[in-house]
């Protein structure tokens, strides 16, 4: 559930905050929640990306929709409120396969492709991925706490995990 002090990040959207702010995104399915955190400035940023690559698609004006462009904007927005990209660490969640398709069709494996692309893009920017929970076949709600960078994952009928 969304509490009053939380900033909700929608699908194909991103946002940043300083401590003691909390960012959340609801019901990640095949999408990925990319959480970045600067533990020195206590600045957090969360993106909810839907697709792996902006260059593969014509209609790509929404930067927050794609792993590659979302990460660039997320870093820039965090630096604007005091983060230093050298101190950023990443945690990611999502990338589920929500339906039991025959997974040979590449288009239907968008969750896996989102997770792979996100890891690749983080590596390109030299941001260490310190924790992740991707794959499986269930939706996830995540919360990112700017005070200490903890990343809380909730799923229907399951316990709460903190990465």
């Amino acid at each position: 559930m969304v509490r009053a002090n939380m900033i909700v990040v929608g699908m194909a959207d991103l946002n940043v905050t300083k401590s003691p702010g909390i960012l959340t995104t609801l019901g990640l399915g095949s999408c990925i929640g990319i959480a970045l955190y600067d533990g020195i400035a206590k600045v957090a940023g969360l993106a909810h990306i839907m697709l792996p690559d902006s260059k593969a698609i014509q209609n790509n004006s929404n930067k927050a929709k794609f792993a590659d462009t979302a990460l660039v904007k997320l870093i820039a927005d965090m630096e604007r409120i005091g983060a230093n990209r050298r101190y950023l660490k990443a945690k990611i969640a999502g990338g589920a396969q929500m339906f039991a398709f025959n997974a040979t069709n590449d288009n239907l494996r968008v969750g896996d492709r989102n997770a792979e692309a996100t890891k690749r893009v983080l590596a390109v920017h030299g941001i260490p991925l310190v924790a992740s929970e991707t794959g499986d076949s269930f939706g996830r709600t995540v919360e990112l706490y700017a005070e200490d960078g903890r990343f809380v994952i909730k799923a229907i009928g399951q316990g709460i995990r903190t990465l």
Partner: protein
Amino acid sequence: MEKTGAEGLFSEMHLDILKEIGSMGTAHAATALSKMINKKVTMPVPNVSWVEFKNVAEFVGGAENVIAGILVTLSGNIQGMMMYLMDIDAAHDLAAIVVGQEHVSEERYAFTEMERSVIEEMGNILVSSYLGSLAGLTNSQIKPSIPFVTIDMANAILSVPASEFGKIADKILFIESQMSIENVKSSGCFILVPNLHSFYRIIRSLGVE
């Protein structure tokens, strides 16, 4: 004004035509479902609209509301996917009518094997009926896959068609439909996600390009 993406190609007239397909589809669906369960099924003319994918979840009770989603992938002349979505309380109610047994488990999210297959089959009938009228009106062959059912948070389920459709536009074609079986009312919705090529085929074959 320059328009980009699929939504720019749609006028009111296009929506009227899709609405017409929608009402024929739901009429077929009501008849087919009624035969299957041997009960009176009514479905009024649906609302058809373009919805931005970030707002779609609001129409099904909110991002974290748990819903049942039935998904069919489409091949043939028209490719893409189609879904039927309903609230889990509606899913439980409908399954109870068909199975002839109330949902007994205290766990709201739990569905028995029997309930699941009833929901799967109902969704299949609804989606196939809709596709039947779409195929007829556009003179196309549409081959639906077997139905896949998932019960989870609305946003998580919607991420599948949203990412498919997000490749060409930021909006989803949303067909809201009410259904009542005997005196139990439930609302659900269809989402039609053609790929770009199939989208043009639909528009062209309707003669409104």
